């Protein structure tokens, strides 16, 4: 019999908003269940520019978003100082070009104009501990950033904050769990439970890994499924619209500039080239997206669009090695007859009660930098409905790892030099919790050695994440640790990490192979649009290592057959009255198909 458990609230979607709401609820003592059909931070929450920036871009037409983003950015710094890093920007003020090229910020606000604009932004900087702007002469700008084009009048600086967006989501979810929440990743929403008045009172879910089904009930269900939101609501009979926007970034294997640079696309859009974590990222695009939400793909022409813009401010860009792309679909608020770039980044909530679906609230829009604010607003609504009067603490209570400060230099000074970088990167991700992770090295010194050499990530961190950070699949590991996200894109570390998964998560060899195939394919998809130069050479090595040296291809297929067999046997062994168990869908992503509307729908 399928399990049935009661919660106060069920949150659908394990992105930054869902995880933030779950954390806020859990911290107020609200019994909360989070259901995610993939991994945490799988969608736009992980595939963004990785900044909790103030949204200067919106200053011209969406001041409220800028102010809110700056305020919440300040709070995020307080609760997760270990995850933050400063990214100073240089905004080059280009020489005036033809009139039709003057559509954006840097182009049509010449030096004085730019200054006035940044003075306006300076007002919001203290909210996020940002520094006010500085005006740079052309010589100063070129001295600071030698890669900059000399086709500039001067430049203006801008101060922003970078963050590991995956860790932000995961640590919100872990904090929720530590305060009593339940988090189910890799669970499909297959339907809603309704009472006889049509109110949503729970959800039916199915574990995509094991195939087991369950029903959970709650007084309120929050739909925080991002770009999937309208489909999720439709499954309950609710309705709203988004303008989903596809955003593509290119990742470089190392830092190619000292500062973040603001650049302009052929269509006048503003984009960034910036140092981020151990590499550099360039992007993003923003195009209306009508494709498969589960399989968005960056394409070579999108890469060319971005590079064309980057070349204008940073002419040497073509000399550097692109290592991969990533793509996300923004759940942007709907509006008719507006260019993608001008769509509001604000968030809205929809109560579906007027549509005859009480008990369901949908969250739309939002941005990484204001997720906490969004979560607080939703949780306040939930708390009011539940009569809960506990105050919100998410702006002051530290996220996991931020409980204590950690002096990384002092802590790592006795380590051999070659391991220090990996361990200090771990300290960046896990903050004060790193010490416990590294303690295993006393017994087994092998675990201090980096498994992923590019980022780098040590084995102890990988094992700890598999055991304690809501990891269920191999592809989940990279979102906790950045394993396989460096220069080589998972050439040497993925097979090894799949072995760690076998050991720590008790996988069978067949499951290990299916996981490896899936994770390698996920990396391959990101690398494919930038198969050029050294990156293509690395993929040739990757292919030779796995399919020539390790002969994995036939065994990938054999493993898939074996896993399907297991699922068949499980289904056959089930008693006749048990719910039908679907076959293991380990590789093929599933799509939520909207249920047909009932005939008697009001």
């Amino acid at each position, binding site marked *: 019999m399928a399990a049935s458990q009661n919660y106060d609230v069920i949150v659908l979607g394990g992105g930054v908003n869902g995880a933030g709401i779950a954390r806020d609820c859990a911290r107020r003592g609200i019994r909360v269940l989070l259901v995610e059909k993939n991994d945490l931070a799988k969608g736009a929450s992980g595939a963004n520019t990785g900044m909790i920036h103030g949204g200067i871009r919106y200053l011209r037409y969406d001041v409220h978003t800028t102010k809110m983003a700056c305020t919440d950015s300040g709070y995020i710094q307080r609760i997760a100082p270990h995850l933050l890093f400063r990214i100073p920007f240089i905004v080059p003020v280009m020489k005036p070009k033809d009139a039709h090229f003057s559509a954006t910020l840097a182009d049509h606000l010449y030096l004085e104009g730019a200054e006035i604009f940044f003075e306006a932004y300076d007002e919001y900087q203290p909210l996020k501990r940002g520094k006010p702007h500085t005006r740079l002469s052309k010589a100063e700008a070129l001295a600071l950033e030698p890669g900059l084009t000399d086709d500039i009048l001067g430049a203006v600086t801008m101060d922003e904050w970078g963050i590991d967006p995956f860790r932000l989501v995961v640590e919100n979810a872990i904090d929720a769990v530590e305060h009593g929440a339940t988090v189910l990743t890799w669970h499909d929403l297959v339907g809603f439970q309704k009472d006889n008045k049509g109110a949503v009172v729970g959800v039916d879910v199915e574990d995509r890994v094991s195939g087991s089904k369950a029903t959970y009930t709650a007084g309120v269900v929050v739909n925080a499924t991002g770009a999937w939101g309208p489909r999720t609501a439709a499954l309950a009979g609710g309705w709203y619209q988004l303008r989903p926007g596809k955003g593509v970034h290119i990742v470089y294997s190392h830092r190619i500039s000292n500062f973040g640079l603001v650049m302009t696309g052929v269509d006048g859009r503003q984009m960034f080239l910036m140092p981020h974590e151990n590499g550099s990222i360039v992007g993003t695009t923003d195009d209306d997206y009508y494709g498969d939400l589960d399989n968005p793909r960056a394409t*070579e022409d999108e890469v060319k669009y971005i590079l064309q813009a980057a070349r204008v401010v940073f002419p040497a860009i073509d000399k550097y090695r692109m290592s991969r792309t990533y793509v996300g679909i923004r759940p942007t608020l709907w509006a008719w007859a507006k260019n993608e770039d001008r769509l509001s980044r604000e968030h809205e909530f929809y109560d579906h009660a007027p549509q005859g679906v009480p008990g369901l609230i949908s969250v739309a829009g939002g941005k990484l930098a204001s997720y906490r604010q969004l979560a607080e607003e939703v949780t306040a609504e939930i708390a009011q409905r539940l009569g809960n009067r506990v105050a919100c603490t998410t702006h002051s209570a530290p996220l996991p790892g931020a409980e204590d400060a950690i002096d990384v230099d002092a802590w790592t000074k006795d380590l051999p030099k070659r391991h220090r970088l990996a361990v200090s990167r771990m300290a960046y991700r896990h903050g004060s919790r790193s010490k416990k992770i590294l303690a295993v090295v006393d017994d087994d010194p092998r675990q201090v050695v980096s498994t992923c050499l590019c980022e780098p990530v040590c084995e102890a961190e990988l094992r700890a994440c598999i055991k304690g950070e809501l990891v269920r699949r191999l592809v989940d590991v990279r979102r906790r640790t950045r394993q396989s996200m460096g220069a080589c894109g998972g050439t*040497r570390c993925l097979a090894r990490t799949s072995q760690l998964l076998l050991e720590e998560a008790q996988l069978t060899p067949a499951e290990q192979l299916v996981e490896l195939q899936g994770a390698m394919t996920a990396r391959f998809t990101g690398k494919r649009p930038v198969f050029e130069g050294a990156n293509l050479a690395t993929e040739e090595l990757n292919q030779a290592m796995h399919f*020539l*040296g*390790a002969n994995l291809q036939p065994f990938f297929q054999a493993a898939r*057959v074996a896993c399907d067999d297991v699922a068949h046997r499980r289904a056959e062994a089930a008693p006749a009255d048990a719910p039908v168990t679907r076959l293991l869908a380990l590789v093929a992503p599933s799509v939520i198909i909207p249920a047909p509307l009932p005939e008697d729908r009001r």
Partner: protein
Amino acid sequence: MSAATEVDVVVVGAGVAGLVAALRARAAGASVLVLGKSSGASFAWSGSVDVADSLVGMVPGSAVAGLERGDAVEDAIVQTAGRLPRHPYARLGAARVNVRDALRFLVDAVPSLALSLRPDGKNHVLATALGTVKRGALVSRSQLLDLAELPSSAVVGVVEWRDLAGFNARPVSEMLRFCCGLGAGHRAPRFVDVVVPRVNGGEVFLDNAIFAAALDDDAERLRFLQALQLRLAAIDPAPTHLLMPAALGTRPLSKEALDDVDKKVGRPLRELLALPPSVPGRRLITALRDAATAAGVDVRDASVMAPVIEAGRVVSLEVQRGPERQQVRPRVVVLASGRFFGGGLVRDHEARESLFGLPVVVDGQPLGDRFIGSLTGDSVDGDHAIFRAGLAVDDALAPLDHSQRRVLDNVVCAGSVIGGFDPSRDGAALGVHVWTSWLAGSLAADAAKFSALGPGGQAQDLA
């Protein structure tokens, strides 16, 4: 600048293909200069020379058993040619009879590796570092443990050293159990884990290459073998054979040394096929370079650039090593520069061969600036045309343009710079490299002799 050097054969590329071509050309009497920046894809060599595989593409467990070895390699070559019409085995059909000679040439060139073929002409069935199994025609002595030949009573111990990072026995033994157990027809051996406690204090070995360097020392090797022997006493059932990561020294072990290893641990101890950075690859390249140098081949770590072409012939090349630059005037050039990993091909918006700018072909079409989406499959293990890309060649291994005309008269191609095959998918990899290089070396030596008699061979003012 020093005066230009005149050489019969300049080999561009110092990987396996370049060195085999050089040895062959030298054996035919030519003066040979090898120029290369790296040792190419030997970095990733598993230790198995894959020549052809009649079972390639079949799924173990359904179509075949995990331990099946397939038809004789020579038959598999013919099958490969039939299955893949653009494969060098098909395109150079007449020369196919030389594969056996080419392999014999390799075996004789590097006697220290003791590369061996099976007497029945079929493939070996070998264990990889991930615990999968793989078929290969030639394998060196220290890696030769044919899983399909073991008696059903065999117990294979997978050795994990707690001094060596990045390798645990359990995932490998479990994978071997899974892969060897697929399908009917063979009784798979049993696999057990042998975890050897720390021998050294302090830091561990970071990878196989560093561990192998430590094991080069006889006394050090003895310490580790004794620790293994001690541990084996506690393993039940007692292993009859042992497999460990490919790290038994950076140099090939002599027969006596390997016998001694076996005696110390009381049973055969062999190496798994390797993952990069490959110790067996380093052994092979070192042995080939030593053989080439001993034969009088000039092998230099240098870059090649600025080719001068006159009347369809390469008349000079510039060689750069550090700050030094030198002109070389070759009679014949063997192009053994590999593909993307070796540096022979580049794709930067547009694809080209990197030294002469020769056109790159994929599946009979120009690669040019085609979009990557049409050249790659959707999954990592799918079909990727881009990894079959290379130069089109005629029967004399001379590069062709898109109209099937010879581009350069005195260039002979060798190894993976020749397109039409995917080493990672066709069941034929290093065997094709060795065979085409052997052919190229022979053709180059002949052409150099011919050109020495003609006008191009007359003494010229080289200053």
